[in-house]
């Protein structure tokens, strides 16, 4: 029997339609638990979207004013916690600019090597997580496996996987471990294998490409006017990379290419990130070759290795001559910061950097230097002034603006978080797309709550 249709409705246009408000997050897995979006939908199209941030605000900038200059470093770890070494480096270089002290070349190279390893880890997380949100769970597992290899490298050098606090004002905590170059080679071999696999799984995958292609588009002009930098900007075709355009440390000596996209959509951002990982590994390999002092620091073992406590005892009774050339055996976390490595990882300025442990334990000058830097109310005291120093973070230009009033605490530390600019443009990017495109677009932002909300 034929169904009787309502004769007054002739086409779907006569049906009553209403916009729907859809609240996404903050307790939504794709929003990382810290972003709320209120989307106004017409059918499946996003008419408007309001992005709300601030759920992870911890008062980084306020806390930085209460500690000394080196005390800020653990807080910087928690900005972009996927690539904390870049934050460490940016902050330390800003304070070094304020102090006007140069750091040894080897220290620059070590910082760059670790920054680039962090950048690869960051991109792996971003691509892996956003692929997972589109259903490619295998890719996520593969990429997290590769990230694990890289974090093991980071752990080998710094002693921690994420909250590394590795850089110091005027240097780094310790030298690279002996077998670092080999471990790095092995980890990169595995990472490259994963990248090949992921490339095979995603780049021509019909489902993935259809979800990524042609959505989340932003034009180059818009990206610039919103202050967007990093891979997100480069996907629109603008070739701006702080490492190339305002080179810092020794980036001008290391050859690498800056991949740029053409369309500024999600697919381009994916491709740019995939290529940047390869370029970062290229930088690390070259930096390891060029590393002043050789890829493995030769620790000239002068004298016998003596437990640090014994050195202290001998020094207390004044037997300095007996311990003058000994190397202190300290806790493993201090490995690579002894007298042999000290001059190549730390600025030659006693007012800024801690002495080698042999000196702290073995002579009064070293002990005083140590105390002058670590005692409450002492520490590094830059001259009055203000500086801004940008580095290329994994998400774009990461700038530190530091104001000093000449005391031991920073007067003001401001971070320019790269994903803040991208998040402020997100509502414009999403408008007009389908609701399902919200997930890949937001994934390609690589929003890191730690640096966004500070």
């Amino acid at each position: 029997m034929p169904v009787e249709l309502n004769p007054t409705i002739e086409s779907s246009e006569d049906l009553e339609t209403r916009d729907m408000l859809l609240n996404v997050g903050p307790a939504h897995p794709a929003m990382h638990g810290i972003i709320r979006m209120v989307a106004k939908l017409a059918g499946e199209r996003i008419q408007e979207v309001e992005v709300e941030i601030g759920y992870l605000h911890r008062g980084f900038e306020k806390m930085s004013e209460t500690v000394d200059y080196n005390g800020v470093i653990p807080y910087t770890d928690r900005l972009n916690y996927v690539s904390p070494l870049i934050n460490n480096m940016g902050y330390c270089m800003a304070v070094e600019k304020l102090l006007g002290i140069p750091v040894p070349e080897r220290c620059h190279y070590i910082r760059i090597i670790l920054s680039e390893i962090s950048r690869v880890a960051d991109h792996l997380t971003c691509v892996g997580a956003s692929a997972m949100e589109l259903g490619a769970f295998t890719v996520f597992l593969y990429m997290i496996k590769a990230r694990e290899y890289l974090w093991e490298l980071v752990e080998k050098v710094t002693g921690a996987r994420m909250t590394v606090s590795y850089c110091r004002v005027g240097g780094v905590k310790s030298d690279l471990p002996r077998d670092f170059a080999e471990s790095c080679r092995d980890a990169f071999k595995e990472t490259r294998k994963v990248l090949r696999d992921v490339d095979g799984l995603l780049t021509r995958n019909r489902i993935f490409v259809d979800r990524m292609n042609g959505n989340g588009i932003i034009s180059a002009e818009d990206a610039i006017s919103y202050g967007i930098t990093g891979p997100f900007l480069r996907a629109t075709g603008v070739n701006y990379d702080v490492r190339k355009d305002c080179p810092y440390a020794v980036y001008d000596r290391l050859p690498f290419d800056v991949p740029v996209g053409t369309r500024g959509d999600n697919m381009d951002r994916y491709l740019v990130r995939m290529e940047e990982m390869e370029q970062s590994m290229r930088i690390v390999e070259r930096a390891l070759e060029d590393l002043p002092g050789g890829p493995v620091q030769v620790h000239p073992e002068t004298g016998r290795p003596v437990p640090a406590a014994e050195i202290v005892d001998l020094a207390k009774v004044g037997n300095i001559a007996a311990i003058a050339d000994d190397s202190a055996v300290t806790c493993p976390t201090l490995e690579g910061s002894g007298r042999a490595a000290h001059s190549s990882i730390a600025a030659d300025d006693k007012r800024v950097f801690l002495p080698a442990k042999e000196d702290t334990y073995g002579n009064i000058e070293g002990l005083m230097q140590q105390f002058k830097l670590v005692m409450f109310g002492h520490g590094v005291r830059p001259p009055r002034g203000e500086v801004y120093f940008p580095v290329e973070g994994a998400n774009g230009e990461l700038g530190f603006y530091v104001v000093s009033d000449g005391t031991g605490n920073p007067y003001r530390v401001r971070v320019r978080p790269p994903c803040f600019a991208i998040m402020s443009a997100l509502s414009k990017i999403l408008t007009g797309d389908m609701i399902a495109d919200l997930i890949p677009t937001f994934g390609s932002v690589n929003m890191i709550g730690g640096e966004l909300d500070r």
Partner: protein
Amino acid sequence: MNPLIESVRQRFPDAVSAFHTYRGDATVVLRRSFIVDVARFLKDDPSLAMNYLMDLTAVDYSSFGKGPVPAFFASSGVSVRPSPRVQDEDAWPGPPDQARFAVVYHFYSLTHKHRLRLVVPLDEADAELDSLSSLWPGANWLEREVWDMFGITFRGHPDLKRILMYEGFEGHPLRKDYPVKKRQPLIGPIN
């Protein structure tokens, strides 16, 4: 003198109250009524072409140089004077006189790869400034953050409300008189 500062000074002789290049950062201190005009000039002038508003923040100078002394021997810390090898065109002139706040803009030019910092001192009683959000949409959130953290109002801002703190939060946490340990929990203890 830095050519960037020179061109701003020539174009707006009344606007510039001071300038310096400390540690290589070209800085112009502006009178506040000129900020939009100067910013538009920086953006549109082809020889400057500052198409990026990289950062916008503020500093509360109210306790500059008079921070609480943490211990009786605190002044015995060794201050670092930069080595004479560091090229410094100018000494840092210090915080703005009288004014409590300074709003700090960092501009960058993609074409010329140069940076310029603008500083606008503001009095506490009249902490208001024109918004740049008509020139750079990215200024929208940055100005919201400055308002949230410092309580500086931006005239002409489309939607000036809190961004990192929540609605109903009292005070502006990055002001120096906001206590570090002050708590304003949204949810209190049960009973």
